């Protein structure tokens, strides 16, 4: 296997493949920075261009776009509270407050370095553990998914930066939004108001572009004072590097979470970043720092989503089953070139597999080299007066929403959620729990109903298997713990004012 890796490195370093890697990661960074336009759209658009190219080169480039976007996606999340990539939503929770406190450079550095460590760990896992990992992915059935997603939902209680009541209300709203569309089991339409476009449910992109992008801009229009522009002209590297070392455990834990959750089809970057964030908050000595600029709050999700992106290539390559939209398209690229990923990829096309794996090592190095200097560039971009940024962000949000499905309806949705985002901000609600519930809710429902249908109504199926049971126990423990500490807070002292 070390020989295979060496062979793979040779393949990856050959000039044409190296060039494609560079193109891929650069493009991925750009796409990641641009809000709303994500890897799936870009990979889909570039797919035809790869026809005449060798399959390894094509996949190297497309994969580069994929994990490159995870690097770039944190940039707008941190600088302007607009997730550049679906998975970067969680980075806004602490990344944007850090930027508002003048620590944007530190946040960006943490994101870049955390992503590098996570990506590297992910590639190591890919090369050493891909077969056992794909078996692990195979065994994950509805009861396990249920346990995992329930655990994720219970962590919502930790994520509200302010009062728990408001957090739960947002989660409830998010759950409802996730139910719009067709019922997963019977196919009946729920809350679609007769609109055909809603029968597939709300797409993540218009919702986030609206709530975060348009909502934030509309809210800022109401402020009396001019928005603060650049907070620091140059990045204080020594301080930032110290901060990175400070959060090294968050990076490691985030990478691990992303590593395992990323393998699960349907798991992926968003859930990993949510889980990693919540885990850090739970483990922190002073959880109240989270939501207000805790560097761990940036390190954890950024590491998680990059590790997840890397390991999500495994089920696609070794099982032929893609876990997310982008790997589905990379799979298509394989198919067009006559290579069928799946159980025989390693046997029939080892050069392709190892070449791609090795190129991901190289890609991560390239991205680190690319992104660290870019931190300074982006900080300087913040010098642009907010009023120009605002209109640009509004535009990018709308274009991003349109480009997902070539649908004007999606732009209308974005505006609608923009209005909602504005209203929620005015009422001092935090949107974080809403997004989490929106993503996890449908998975909880589907996996629960699948499990009960499989067992024909026998609830014990949810606890029978060890992994599923473990997740549920963890969720219960967390709920109890939170309940106890909230209860103590409630009864212990006089009513206090929560400051958001």
């Amino acid at each position: 296997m070390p020989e295979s890796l060496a062979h793979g490195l040779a393949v990856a370093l050959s000039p044409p493949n190296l060039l494609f890697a560079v193109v891929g990661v650069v493009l991925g960074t750009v796409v990641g920075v641009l809000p709303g336009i994500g890897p799936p759209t870009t990979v889909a658009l570039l797919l035809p261009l790869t026809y005449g190219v060798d399959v390894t080169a094509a996949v190297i480039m497309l994969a580069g776009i994929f994990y490159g976007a995870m690097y770039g996606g944190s940039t707008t999340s941190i600088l302007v509270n607009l997730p550049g990539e679906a998975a970067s939503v969680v980075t806004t929770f602490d990344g944007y407050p850090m930027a508002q406190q003048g620590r944007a450079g530190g946040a960006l550095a943490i994101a870049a370095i955390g992503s590098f460590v996570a990506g590297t760990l992910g590639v190591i896992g890919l090369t050493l553990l891909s077969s056992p990992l794909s078996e692990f992915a195979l065994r994950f059935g509805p009861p396990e998914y249920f346990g995992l997603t329930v655990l994720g939902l219970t962590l919502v209680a930790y994520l509200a930066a302010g009062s728990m009541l408001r957090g739960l209300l947002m989660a409830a709203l998010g759950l409802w939004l996730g139910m719009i569309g067709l019922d997963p089991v019977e196919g009946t339409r729920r809350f679609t108001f007769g609109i055909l476009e809603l029968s597939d449910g709300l797409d993540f992109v218009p919702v986030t572009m609206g709530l975060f992008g348009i909502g934030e801009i509309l809210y800022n229009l109401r402020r009396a004072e001019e928005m603060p522009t650049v907070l620091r002209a140059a990045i204080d590297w020594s301080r930032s590097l110290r901060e990175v070392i400070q959060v090294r455990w968050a990076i490691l834990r985030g990478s691990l979470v992303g590593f395992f959750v990323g393998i699960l089809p349907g798991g992926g970057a968003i859930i990993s970043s949510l889980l990693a964030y919540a885990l850090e908050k739970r483990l922190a000595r002073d959880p109240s720092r989270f939501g207000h600029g805790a560097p761990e709050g940036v390190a954890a999700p950024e590491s998680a989503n990059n590790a997840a992106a890397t390991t999500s290539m495994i089920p696609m390559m070794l099982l032929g089953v893609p876990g997310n939209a982008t790997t589905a398209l990379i799979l298509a690229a394989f198919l067009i070139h006559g290579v069928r990923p799946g159980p025989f990829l390693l046997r029939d096309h080892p050069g392709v597999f190892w070449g791609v794996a090795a190129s991901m090592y190289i890609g991560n190095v390239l991205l680190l080299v690319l992104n660290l200097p870019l931190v300074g560039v982006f900080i300087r971009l913040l010098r642009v007066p907010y009023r120009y940024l605002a209109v640009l962000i509004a535009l990018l949000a709308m274009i991003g929403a349109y480009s997902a499905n070539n649908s004007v309806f999606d732009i209308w949705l974005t505006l609608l959620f923009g209005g909602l985002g504005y209203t929620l901000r005015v009422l001092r609600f935090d949107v974080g729990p809403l997004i989490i519930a929106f993503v996890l809710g449908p998975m909880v429902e589907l996996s629960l109903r699948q499990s009960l249908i499989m067992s024909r109504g026998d609830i014990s199926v949810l606890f029978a298997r060890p992994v599923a049971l473990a997740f549920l126990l963890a969720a219960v423990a967390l709920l109890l713990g939170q309940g106890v500490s909230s209860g103590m807070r409630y009864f212990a002292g006089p009513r206090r004012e929560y400051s958001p």
Partner: protein
Amino acid sequence: MRTMRHRLTGILLTIIALALGVATGPTWSQEAYPTKPVELVIPFAAGGSHDLHARVIAGFAQQSLGQPLVVLLKPGGGGAIASQFVIKARGDGYTLLFGSNGPNTILPQVQDVGYKMREFTPVCMINYSPPLLFVGANAPWRTLAEFIEFSKANPGKVNFAHTGIWGAAHFPMLIAESKTGAKVNFVPFDGGGPALLAVASGNADASFGFAAQLLPFVQAGRVRVLGVAAPERIETVRDTPTFRELGVDVTFTLWRTILAPSTTPPLRMRTLRQACAKIVQDPSFRALIRQLGEPLIYMDGPDFLTFWRNEWDDVARTLATIRR
């Protein structure tokens, strides 16, 4: 007096002739078609088999048609969004639908989507993919007959993974149920991939899937194929018997047909049909389709129309039986 009447008649006749000429005038300008790119609208998401086939076709279209074929993805609503989009566009031959049985045969009969068969006229069918019934490697059934017998004797005991109501893993099993009296327990999954994994890992007992994705798992010994729901054997899975051969009349053809709005002028339809016939004969085209793991089953417009009508009626009958 007579000359006046003659003259009036003459004038009238001239006017009528001119009017007729104007009315049929547009057919003259049809000779210059196409003069700009033609749009092919796909009712499914990017990366799927329709998308891949469309891109292959687009690669060859320009030689045959003279203008590029632009692929436009408009997923959603089970294919209704794309279908409605094409109908609403001008029927001038520049907007076509790459349709399938899901959006265009089944969906209009289970939901009010604003169209049925008559809004579309087929240009040509590129191919179809029939689903294969597969079970886990450890499953006790080695033949279709055993599977059906078991499902009849133990109604609701077999956990059957499906990928969407009325979809390719659901509808053919519904047909099988209605024709054999078998009954399975349908478990919903999020797509072909998760369903395949579920059966391979034992989380589900059986499902329908497509050859391209299934074959590696079959070769690796993780799943076993019991039959293919096609009218006749398919070249990509030559050794798999059809349901019909095994005595159960179940077919489900996920066809890929270029459909034009019915208002498209006949001369333009002819141009399109000729171009299509040319494309499918190109050896490089055929090689690319084979590379995708898909069969080459071409049908021209009129033949497909007959096929489609029969399919429509079959589906109507099945639905009537189920709903009883």
